[in-house]
């Protein structure tokens, strides 16, 4: 390549880059915008996206929009949805051992496991949940081991693990109830008190480990990870369905001086006062989960409404599905909650700004505010109606899905 060719090549690249930059400016016009922020619900609003970020949001009448850029119209717009508990990305759609990597069952004490090392950023189910509005996910180890490992927060970019991950140490996952004792009965854990004791023993060991001066601590992956729960560096999420299992989680958290966030929480609506007092957040299971097994039989479609009325902090999730469908759809689980009494805005907040705050990523995602990532979902009608569609999903300002879906 001679000198002139090089100059021409650089010039061409420059033109292409600036063209791409121009293409990334998008103006969204909507009848209704749920901002999940101070502006609340905006009627006849606009959102301007530039270089992956939101650069303006407000009423059309008072918000300046650039003359160039693609205009996209919608009936209703919400921030990108955040699923606060899913195994999409680690449990694949084929549902065979080759693509199931959420549940390590070789060791009941799996604090050293990191879900990032199981995450397949190219799993097709990620694309499926994304086209129905999910732009961020809290991906967790499975619900088998009493101490199951470290969860992570991903954007549904479908790039690489490192590129997609917002937080590789989101929470330590603990499991109570039927699953851990069934999975580890051959290893001697056959009762709820056995599961609880094994978790307490692990935490006690981590406490002793952490009480040593740093230079005297052994190089132990599990202890290092578990100790972060005790110091508050990492959140503790307990998967628990039944009332007594939820109570056990709160008891263990109290004993070791940390906050327990309850996931699944099927019967949590029966103990709203205790949950409020615990300062934790309930990560609700999919309301349309099958009521098979004893733990799910008291699932209530009214639970989110009851949490909202009682002031129990809660966020939406899809949880775990072992068969067909391989994943629940977050939007449709929210819809069932709304159809059973939860307010629409409360539902949207519980899948946007509330989880963003819970996971400590609210400076980046969770609401439609200037400076935040342009993760935006567009609908052609009421987002919760069965017969409405998701028409566009923007992720970091890029149109990643175009409907109707």
């Amino acid at each position, binding site marked *: 390549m001679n000198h002139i060719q090089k100059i021409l090549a650089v010039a061409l690249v420059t033109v292409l880059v600036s063209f791409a930059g121009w293409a990334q400016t998008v103006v969204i016009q909507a009848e*209704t915008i*749920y901002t999940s922020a101070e502006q609340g*619900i905006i*009627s006849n609003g606009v959102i301007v996206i530039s270089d992956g970020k939101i650069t303006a949001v407000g009423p059309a009448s008072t918000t300046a929009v650039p003359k160039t850029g693609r205009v996209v119209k919608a009936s*209703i717009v919400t921030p990108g949805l955040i699923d606060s508990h899913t195994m999409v990305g680690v449990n*694949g*759609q*084929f*549902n*065979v051992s080759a693509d199931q990597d959420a549940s390590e069952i070789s060791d009941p004490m799996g604090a050293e496991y990191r879900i990032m090392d199981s995450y397949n950023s190219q799993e*097709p*189910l990620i694309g*499926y*949940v994304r086209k129905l509005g999910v732009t961020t996910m809290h991906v967790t180890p499975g619900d088998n081991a009493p101490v199951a490992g470290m969860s992570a927060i991903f954007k549904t970019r479908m790039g690489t693990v490192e590129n997609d991950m917002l937080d590789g140490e989101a929470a330590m996952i603990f499991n109570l109830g039927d699953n851990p004792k069934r999975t580890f009965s051959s290893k001697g854990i056959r009762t709820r008190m056995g599961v609880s004791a094994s978790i307490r023993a692990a935490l006690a060991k981590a406490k002793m480990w952490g009480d040593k001066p740093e230079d005297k601590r052994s190089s132990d992956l599990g202890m290092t990870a578990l100790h972060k729960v005790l110091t508050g560096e990492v959140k503790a999420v307990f998967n628990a369905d039944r009332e007594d299992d939820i109570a056990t989680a709160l008891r263990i958290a109290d004993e070791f001086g940390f906050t327990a966030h309850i996931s699944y929480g099927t019967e949590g*609506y*029966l103990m709203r006062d205790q949950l409020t007092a615990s300062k934790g957040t309930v990560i609700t299971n999919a309301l*349309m989960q*099958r*009521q*098979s097994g004893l733990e799910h*039989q*008291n*699932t*209530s*479609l*009214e639970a989110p*409404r*009851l949490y909202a*009325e009682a002031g129990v902090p809660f966020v939406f999730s899809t949880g775990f*599905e*072992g*068969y*067909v*469908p*391989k*994943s*629940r*759809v977050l939007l*449709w689980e929210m*819809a*069932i909650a*709304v*159809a*059973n*009494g*939860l*307010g*629409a805005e*409360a*539902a949207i907040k519980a899948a946007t700004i509330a989880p963003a705050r819970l996971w400590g990523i609210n400076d980046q995602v969770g609401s439609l505010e200037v400076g935040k990532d342009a993760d935006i979902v567009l609908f052609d009608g*009421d*987002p*919760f*109606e*069965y*017969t*409405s*569609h998701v028409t566009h999903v923007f992720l970091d300002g890029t149109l990643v899905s175009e409907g109707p*879906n």
Partner: protein
Amino acid sequence: MLNRILSGAAIATLLATSAITAQDTVTAFTGAQLYPIGSDMIESGTLIIHQGKIVAVGADIEIPEGAIAIDASDKVIMPGLVDTHSHIALTGDGGPSAVMNPEKRIMDAVWPADPRIKVALTGGVTTANIMPGSGTLMGGQTAYVKLRGDSIADMLVPNSIGGMKMANGTNPKRSTKAPATRMASAAIVRQKFLDAQDYMKKIDAAKKKKKAKERAAAMPPRDLGMEALMEVLNGARAVHHHTHRSDDIRTVLRLKKEFGFRLVIQHGTESYMVADEIAAANVPVSLIVIDSPGGKHEAINLDIKAAKILDDAGVKLAIHTDDGVTESRYLLRSAALAVRGGLSEETALASVTQNAADMMDLGDRIGSLEAGKDADFVLLDGHPLSVYTHVTETWIDGVKYYDRSDPAQRTYHSGGYRIKERYIANTEMSDSKGAAQ
């Protein structure tokens, strides 16, 4: 003690009397928006029932003297929903033991007291095809039931014999007794049908003998499975065939061509890929609609547009729950998701009523609001396909079996029915709807 028995008997008599009264009295639901199915929606009309049957439906119907008039002007009324594929009330008894099970009857495994029947009623389901599972090539005889009654005898739709459940693809390959391949699956089924044809020929030949003694001597030994398969071969019993992948669907069409049985394709995940072939074979599809693809290899091509594609190709369509894959109470939701995928509302509603009834050979009896049909119907507080709509009442044969206004009954819809008293005390019932703007 005696008092208790007496009062118990008195209550039982009273209940029985009130049920009879309900049926004996002419009842008129007035001012309701009616979806009769098969004819145009009526913005404000009257439904009149008497002795368990519908006696009149229409916009300008005179209410007979002495009739009880119920103001339903804030309600929608549509026929009771028909679920063509259900495993409700089986509690683990859906999986037969042999490779081929034509002699087994699901009616012998149904638990009428299953509380999930009440859960199904809260979604408006009044009739179901309860089937054995898909773990074997031929699961057994299905039962067409109404979701009421204390015994299977009460539940069975009068004069119905049910269908025959069959399956191919992944599920029957899984069990230890099963074939390892699809070609073996097909071969086993073909041989069985050939055996049944031979059995039938022997009986026909025996019947032609002139003397009773000769006839008896020529009759083959009684075989329960063969008897059921004869009903399949002579058309009295339709085959409900679990099948997902397009090649498996083609295999089923091939078997139908060879043996001439009446067929309903059940699930049909990839049926939209071979919609024209299915239409040409004049075979109806009872489609499963679920929330996401996958869970198993043959379900990864699930497409929300499937129902529309089948309907456009002229395939007769039903939509089912496969309870408990989807719970019965979400049957209308499944139909609504098909509308999200492009299906017309009209076909969506027919797919869980008249079309479904037709696939169970019950189309003359149920499936629409028409004079002469069973008084199986549902009251709703809004459009049948809206997420915000709740079923408020479910009636079967002119008797109300679900009433949402009763908090205890409502727990079967909301959840919490196993802890009813606590649930009602602990939760403030609310009918607010948080609809988005």
